[in-house]
C-alpha cells in the first residue's frame, strides 16, 4: 500500500467511528494537523485511532493517563482541535 492509500485508510478509520464525537475529533485532526506531525507522532496517532472510542475519550478528557509521553503529546494536540 502506498502512502496515499494508507492515508485514505486512516481517513476511513478516523471518520467512521462508533461515536459522532470521535468522527469529529479524529477526522478534524487528520484534516488539519496530521500532515505536520513527526513520523513518531504520526505512529502514535495511528495507535490512538486504533483504540475503541470509549478507551480514547477518557484520554482526551484527561480522566485517564496516556501510556507514554509521545502519546500524551498527540492527545494534547487532539484536545486542541476545535470544530470552529
Amino acid at each position, binding site marked *: *500500500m502506498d502512502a*496515499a*492509500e*494508507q492515508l*485514505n*485508510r486512516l*481517513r*476511513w*478509520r478516523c*471518520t*467512521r*467511528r*462508533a*461515536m*459522532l*464525537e*470521535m*468522527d*469529529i*475529533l479524529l*477526522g478534524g485532526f487528520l484534516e488539519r494537523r496530521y500532515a505536520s506531525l513527526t513520523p513518531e507522532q504520526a505512529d502514535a496517532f495511528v495507535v490512538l485511532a486504533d483504540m*475503541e*472510542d*470509549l478507551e480514547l475519550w477518557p484520554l*482526551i*478528557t484527561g480522566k485517564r493517563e496516556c501510556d507514554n509521553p509521545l502519546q500524551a503529546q498527540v492527545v494534547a494536540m487532539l*484536545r486542541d482541535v*476545535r*470544530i*470552529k
Partner: protein
Amino acid sequence: MSALTIPIRKFDAVIVGAGGAGLRAAIQLSEAGLKTAVLSKVFPTRSHTVAAQGGVSASLGNSEEDHWHWHMYDTVKGSDWLGDQDAIEYMCRKAPEAVVELEHFGMPFDRTDEGKIYQRPFGGHMSNFGEKPVRRACAAADRTGHAMLHALYQRNVRANTQFFVEWMALDLIRNAQGQILGVIALEMETGQVVAFHAKATIIATGGAGRIYHSSTNAFINTGDGLGMAARAGIALEDMEFWQFHPTGVAGAGVLITEGVRGEGGILRNSDNERFMERYAPNAKDLASRDVVSRAMVTEINEGRGCGPHKDFVLLDITHLDPATIMKRLPGIRDISIQFAGIDPIKAPIPVVPTCHYMMGGIPTNYHGQVVNADGSVVAGFYAAGEAACASVHGANRLGTNSLLDLLVFGKASGDSVVDAVKKNGAAHQDLPADFAERTLSRLDRLNTQKGGASVDETRLAMQRTMQKHCGVFRFKDMLVEGVAKICEIEQAVHATEIGDKSQTWNTARVEALELDNLIEVAKSTMVSAEARRESRGAHVRDDAPDTPAHPNGRDDEAWLKHSLWHREGSTLSYKPVVLTPLSVETIALKTRAY
C-alpha cells in the same frame, strides 16, 4: 467489469451490518449451523450501537412489580398509536427472555445487592397502564450499547460467524419473481466488487441520521440498507417520523443530556430571555422533549436565535455552582469545551434540536420478514433494528426500546431465516443474467463522470434542506418547497464527480455511494412528511394544531395508517395500522398526554 467477471461467493445467509441487530441475528444463524457472512463498513465493535447509553427495557420486575402488558401500553402510547400492536406485544413479551439471554452471553449488567439485574426509572416507563413510574431499564453503567456489542461479538466468534470487515454492500440482488438472492458488495481495501449469493439476506444497517445537518448520529449512519431496498423496489415505511433531541451542540450535533436541564440548566434566546416560561409556565425548561424542541425552533424562526446567523439558542448553566457542574455534569463540561469551544462554567452552550433516531424503515412483520405493500412476504429478505420498521415505534420511540428492538427482532429475523433455509433445502436460486448490471453502471458512472457535483457540497445541501424544511417543527409551504429542493439535489447526487479514481481505499468513491443511499432516505422522508396532513408523535405540523376535534393535531379518521414511499415515481400508498395484538385486547385510541 461485467457481471460475468464478478466473483461470486455462496453462503446460506448474508447479513449487512454488524451492530446490535446484525450480530444478534448472526448468532441464531451460526449456532444453527448456517454458513453466514456478515458484512460491515467497520469492525463490529465500532458500530453505532456503542452510542446507546440509556439501557434496555424489560419487565423483569426485579425492583418492583412490572408486567409486559404495562410495557406494551407505554410503547403503544409512546408510538401515538401508530405502532403495530401485534409486533409491540411480541417485543414486550420477549423482552425479559432477550435480556436474560444477553446476560448469559456475558453482558455485565449492573446488579442489585441480591445479585439480580438492577433496573432504573426512565421517561415514559409506567406501571399499571400509565399510572406511576416503574423501574424497567437494565443498564451496564453508561456503556450499555458498548457492553452489548462486545457480548454479542464474542458469542459470534465462538459460533464461527464469518465477518467481512470494511466491506460496503451496494445493492440487493433480486430476480424477476421478486425474490432476494443476496447482495453485491465492495471491498474497500481492494476495490473489488463481489456478489454474495445467499438463500437469505438480512439488512441490519441501522439508522440514517446523517440526512440532517444537525444529527447525533455518527458519520457511518447513512441508511445504506434503506437505499438498497428502495432501489430494489421495496417501499419504505413511515419515513416522516424522526425523533429529535432538543439539545445537540450547534454545528456539531453532539448530545447534551437532558440531565443538564434537570440540574437547573436554562434555555435562553438572543434577548437573554428564559423563553420556556412562555411555552410551558409550569414545567419550563423541564417540559417534554417535543415541547422544548418546538419552542426552540419557534424562537429561532421568529428571529430570536443567537449567533451571527441567529440559528441556535443558549443552554445556560453559568448560574450553577462550579463545584456542582464539576461534580454532577463533568462529561457535559468536557463535551462543551471540546465541541462548542466554551467552558459552560463561564458561558452558555449553543444548542439546537438535533436528529436522533429514525422510527421508519424497511417494512417487516414481527418475524423480521420484509413485507410488500400488500402484506405478502418478500422471499429471502429480512430486516431488523433501526433499519427496519416492524413497526414497534410508530410515530415516536419510547426510550430504551431501541436496544430491545434490535435484540428481539435481530433474533426473530435470524430464527425466520433458519426455518426458511431448512424448509427450502440446500439449493441456491439461480442468479439472473443481469444481476449486477445496475450496480456496475452506477460504479461506471462515478468513474467517468465529468463536470459533476462535489459529494461534500451535495451532501451538505441535502442536510441543510432537510434541517430547514423537514425538521422538528414542520410547515406546509416549507414542506412543499422542500420536496422540490430535494428532487433538485437528487439530480446532483446522480451526477456527483470524484477526483480519485483509484481502486485501493478509495474513500471518495465510498462516500459518493453512501450519498446515493442518503438521498433515498431524505427524499422518502420529505415526500412522506409533506403528504401527512396531521400531527402525530414526532411529526408535528404548524397547520395541524391542537384542537378539541383533533387533540395534539392528530387525525385518526384520516391518518391512522402507515405511509409507504415507493421510489419508482416517488409515490405514496398507505396500509392500516395493526390494532389487534396477539393475545390481549387492543389498546384503545386515546389522546397522548404525559
